[in-house]
C-alpha cells in the first residue's frame, strides 16, 4: 500500500507530467485561457486516463500472450480512441450533467499525448494492474493541477503589458518555465 502511495505522490509532484515529462503540452498551452475550462479539461483527462490505464494494461497482456508486443502503439491508440468515443456516448446517455460540462473536451483527448504516454510508461516501468491504475489517475491529477495553476496565472497575465513581440504564447511559455522551476524543488526529495 505504501508502495502505491509513494508512486502516486511521485507521479503528481516529482515527475509531474507537464513540468518534468512534457506529456500533454498541447492542451496545456491550448486550453488554459480560463480556470473553469482548464478544470473541465483536467477532469475529463483524469477520467479517460484512469480508465485507459486499466484497459491498455489488459490489451498489453493479450498482445504479450501472442508475442505481438511491437504492435502496442497501434493497439493502444485504437483502444484510447475507441474508449473516448465510448465514454462520450455513455456520458451523454446516462450522466447528461457531466456530459454537458466535459463533452466538448472529450474528442480532444484522443490526441493528448498524456494518455498514450501514461499507457506506455506503465508498460516501460512494468507496473502491475493496480499500480497502472494508480499511476494513470495520479499523473492525471498532476496534469489537472498544473493546467489549473497555469490558467490562473494566465488570467493575471492578460493585464500585463509586455513588449509587443512577447504577447500571447511567448509570455505564457516563459511563465510555464518559471512554474517548472518551482516544481524542480520537489525533485530534491528522495522517495523509497
Amino acid at each position, binding site marked *: 500500500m505504501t508502495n502505491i502511495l509513494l508512486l502516486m505522490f511521485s507521479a503528481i509532484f516529482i515527475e509531474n507530467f507537464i513540468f518534468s515529462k512534457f506529456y500533454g503540452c498541447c492542451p496545456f498551452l491550448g486550453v488554459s485561457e480560463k480556470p473553469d475550462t482548464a478544470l473541465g479539461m483536467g477532469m475529463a483527462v483524469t477520467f479517460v486516463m484512469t480508465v485507459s490505464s486499466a484497459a491498455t494494461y489488459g490489451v498489453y497482456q493479450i498482445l504479450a500472450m501472442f508475442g505481438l508486443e511491437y504492435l502496442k*502503439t497501434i493497439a493502444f491508440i485504437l483502444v484510447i480512441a475507441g474508449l473516448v468515443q465510448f465514454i462520450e456516448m455513455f456520458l451523454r446517455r446516462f450522466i447528461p450533467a457531466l456530459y454537458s460540462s466535459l463533452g466538448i473536451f472529450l474528442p480532444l483527448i484522443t490526441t493528448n499525448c498524456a494518455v498514450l504516454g501514461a499507457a506506455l510508461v506503465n508498460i516501460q516501468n512494468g507496473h502491475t494492474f493496480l499500480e497502472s491504475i494508480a499511476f494513470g489517475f495520479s499523473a492525471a491529477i498532476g496534469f489537472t493541477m498544473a493546467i489549473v495553476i497555469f490558467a490562473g496565472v494566465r488570467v493575471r497575465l492578460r493585464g500585463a503589458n509586455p513588449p509587443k513581440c512577447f504577447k500571447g504564447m511567448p509570455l505564457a511559455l516563459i511563465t510555464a518555465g518559471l512554474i517548472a522551476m518551482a516544481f524542480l524543488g520537489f525533485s530534491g526529495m528522495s522517495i523509497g
Partner: protein
Amino acid sequence: MENNSEKYSVRSFLGQLKSGIIEQNPTLVQVLGMCPTLATTTSLTNAIGMGLATTVVLAFSNLFISLLRKFIPKQVRIAAFIVIISGFVTAVEMLMKAYFTDLYQSLGVFISLIVVNCIILARAEAFASNNKPLPSIVDGLSMGLGFTCALCLLGTVREILGAGTVAGISIFGESFQPAQMFIMPAGAFITLGCLIALVQKLRTVSAEKQKAKELAAEEAADASEGGNDQ
C-alpha cells in the same frame, strides 16, 4: 477539392518548401507539436533524430493518406488516419531500435508518441486528404524539415547554454561553467518562449516593410495617374 490540376512544377515545389520551413513553420509559427519540441531538444543530436523521424513519418503518412483519400469514408477518417500514422511510427521505431540504438534509448517513449503529434494529423486533415500524392509528399517533407529546423535551433541553443557543447563537442573548454537549468524542463519552456518572441518580432518587422513598400507603390501609381489626367 483538387488544388493541383495543372502539372506539378519546380516552382510550386520550391514554394511549398519555403512555406513549410519559413512562412508556415509548424513549430515556431503555428505552435503545433509542443511535446516533442520541448522534451527532445536537450541536445542537437536528439533534436536531429526526433526531427528526421517525424519527417519520415509525416512524408509517408501524407503519401498514403493522399493515395487512399477517395476510399476513406468521411465519418471515420480520423481513425483511419491514426491507424496509417501509427503503422509508420511502429516501422520507424523498429528501424531506430535496430540501427540507432543510442538515439532510440535517449528519445525513449517520445518515438511512439509521434503518433499523437498534432502536426501529422493536422497535415493529414488539412492537406493530404484533398490533394494529389506528389504535392502531399512534398508538403510532408517541407513541414517535417521545418519542424526539424526549429528543433535543431532550440536544441543548439539549449545545448550551448546548458552543457557548453554542440552535438557533444565541447566549444568553450574546461573552465566554462554551463547553466544546467537550460537542459532541464524549465529551460525548455523559457528558450522556446524567447525563440517564438524573436520570430514574432521578425515577422512584424518584415510585414511593416512589406506595407511600406506597398504604400510607396500606391503613391507612385497615384502620382502617375494624376500626371495622365493633366
